[in-house]
């Protein structure tokens, strides 16, 4: 028994952290955050060259054939650094193609997605909380018509993997006819969103892999968001502790004040145990299939709720500066808002986990 990361997984995290530290240090992150477009293709391409765009993809197409846990530990690191990169949706889109695409489709798209030459995203949500496969109403066919909401990096993607009625997927290329992309203002400016309208847009259906594909894409998404949330919340605790060790009030560093110490301890107690929860949820997707669906729902709802609370607490712990645009905590605060909603709010997954329970 070894419920712990491998040396390779740790190295992967360190490599990613090092790369972001070099290529997207705080000043650059701030620049992208304040930027109108907010997407840096060079940064993403650099990450792809480290292998991050194809961790989970077959080796023959340039992927690393690793597990969901490997995908997730990278998501933790990116979340911790608030990296403004399209890792989440690109991973889910390429996952869908690798699971549901035929050999021709895989051969056509996966090499570019694994190398980072092409960027893909998923277009899932429809109006009124329609994140889940069973809620997708957009009809499959040779063309599609309708609107997808909250498409991550929708303005920048070359390829849309679109969720369709019956829990199926199809692929639309960006330059296809009838695609209209509308920038949407989200709180989290490290992960830009768009509304994508399709009007008689040609689509190529992904027909392999059976009914399980959409469920797996959903569950992997939930786990990656959980990992991002754990990473971000942990970072906020660290930042708050650092601030408390340095900021002086009344002649001492504020870390001397027991009330604040206990607030910081409470924040740590809320988030630190969720490391093992997201690990387990990720591990279960490859090794404990009978539990994986439900534990992914629990992890996503639990950890993003904790992230939300920790983000509020960290803001208060930083006093006035936490409440400014110039302060750094707000970047993670808004990532917490994204993680909480994307692919379904905690409430949605609590309801699901209750339905899936053996009560």
């Amino acid at each position: 028994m070894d419920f712990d990361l491998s040396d390779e997984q740790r190295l992967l995290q360190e490599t990613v952290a090092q790369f972001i530290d070099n290529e997207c240090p705080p000043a650059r992150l701030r620049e992208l955050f304040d930027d109108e477009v907010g997407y840096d293709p060079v940064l993403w391409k650099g990450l792809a060259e480290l292998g991050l765009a194809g961790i989970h993809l077959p080796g023959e197409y340039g992927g690393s054939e690793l597990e969901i846990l490997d995908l997730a530990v990278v998501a933790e690191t990116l979340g911790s650094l608030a990296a403004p990169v399209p890792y989440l949706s690109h991973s889910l889109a390429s996952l869908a193609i690798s699971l549901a695409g035929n050999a021709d489709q895989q051969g056509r798209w996966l090499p570019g997605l694994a190398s980072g030459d092409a960027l893909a995203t998923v277009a899932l949500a429809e109006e009124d909380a329609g994140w889940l496969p069973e809620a997708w109403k957009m009809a499959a066919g040779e063309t599609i018509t309708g609107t997808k909401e909250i498409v991550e990096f929708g303005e920048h993607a070359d390829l849309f993997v679109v969720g369709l009625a019956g829990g199926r997927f199809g692929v639309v290329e960006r330059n296809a006819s009838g695609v209209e992309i509308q920038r949407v203002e989200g709180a989290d400016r490290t992960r830009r969103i768009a509304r994508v309208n399709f009007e008689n847009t040609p689509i190529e259906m992904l027909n392999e892999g059976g009914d399980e594909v959409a469920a797996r894409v959903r569950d992997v998404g939930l786990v990656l968001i959980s990992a991002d949330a754990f990473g971000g919340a942990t970072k906020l605790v660290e930042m708050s502790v650092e601030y408390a060790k340095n900021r002086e009030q009344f002649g001492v560093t504020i870390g001397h004040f027991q009330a604040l110490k206990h607030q910081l301890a409470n924040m740590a107690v809320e988030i630190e145990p969720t490391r093992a929860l997201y690990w387990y949820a990720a591990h279960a997707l490859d090794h404990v299939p009978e539990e994986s669906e439900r534990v992914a729902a629990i992890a996503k709802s639990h950890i993003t709720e904790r992230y939300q609370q920790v983000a509020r607490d960290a803001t208060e712990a930083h006093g006035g500066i936490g409440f400014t645009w110039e302060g750094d905590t707000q970047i993670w605060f808004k990532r917490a808002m994204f993680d909480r909603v994307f692919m379904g709010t905690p409430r949605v997954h609590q309801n699901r986990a209750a339905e899936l329970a053996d009560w």
Partner: protein
Amino acid sequence: MDLSYGQETEDYRKEVKTFLTANWPLAGDEAKMPREDGARLFRERAISEGYLCRNIPKQYGGSEQSADALRGQVIREEFGKARAPMEPRGIGTMMLVPTLLDRGEEWQKEKFVGPTIRGEINWCQGYSEPGSGSDLASLMTKGELDGDDWVINGQKIWTSGAQRADYMFCLVRTEPDEKKHAGISYLLIDMKTKGIDVRPLRQMTGSSEFNEVFLNDVRTPKDWIVGKRGEGWLVSRTTLKHERNSIGNAAQSLGLLSGLVSLAKSRKIDGQPAIEDPGVRRELVRIEGYIRAHQYSGFLQTSKGLKDENAGIIAMMNKLNSTNIGHKVAHLAMEILGDDGLGAPLAAGLGTGTAGSSTANWLSQYMGSLGIAIAGGTANVQRNVIAERGLGLPRDMAANRSK
């Protein structure tokens, strides 16, 4: 127990109504005046009738009425219903004027009080500094006498309205040899003076209500000091109390509640109108419980004030109550907002906001509820005050060490 205002006050209400019927809105040619000018004209008349600036002596432009909290309340109610202008809002009227009346030199009152209460000049407040939030004793901005002027160097932060302000009242360390509070003076500065640099401080919501103010060899006359040298901390204390009371008002919380009900009516949750969700309904009632307790505690404090009695520990809780209520409201609002919970709070640079304005407002509230916990003394400082002054627990050891 009597919640009525009494016959005398109700008679007074009739007078107020009669005045308002005759004077607001302005009629005839006066109705065509620019908005600000019209308001000024109306205020002059209301002052001369004793309805506005009641606690300010006539010689400084007020109506010098004897204190009567119920009459004040009636005026607020009736002017509110008529949407008639009251005293100009702002930190000048609320904080500087009472301080000047209490501690200012005669010439200071004459020069500043009238124009401030008529809305002719605007003020900003220079208390907080980057290195001192709740701890005013650690202020670093320095003032040195050079001939007939104070020369001021330093930085202020969280200064709201600094760009629009004509003057600033601020706390400056003028006695470097004195320790802590004892070395601080309360100075007035003309904001047009050379060496003042105002930079907006953007909030996490994207809006800029606050500023940083950099002071670089800023000169202000020697006698633009309120109170004596080194007394600035004491002089400022009346004002801070004012600020806390105003934030502690339940009106804001009541407004939040009715907004939350509207939100719940307009949104769906789990496929049905949020207002029909039993959990949402109970949480609304739970929040209302806090708000009503807060509101009626305000009645109690007003009544104690009318009798010149001390309201006790409840008076120290207004701010924290508002903060706690704001958190609960924010939490429920996010639950109801559902997928819109990742939207941008305000148009923060991107052109194509899709969230309706109500959504954006709620997202701002979600963040703003943190701001209110931070502004005017953090929640932890409030808890210290309640524990020490209210419950009589020992003073804080960490804070004590520096005393």
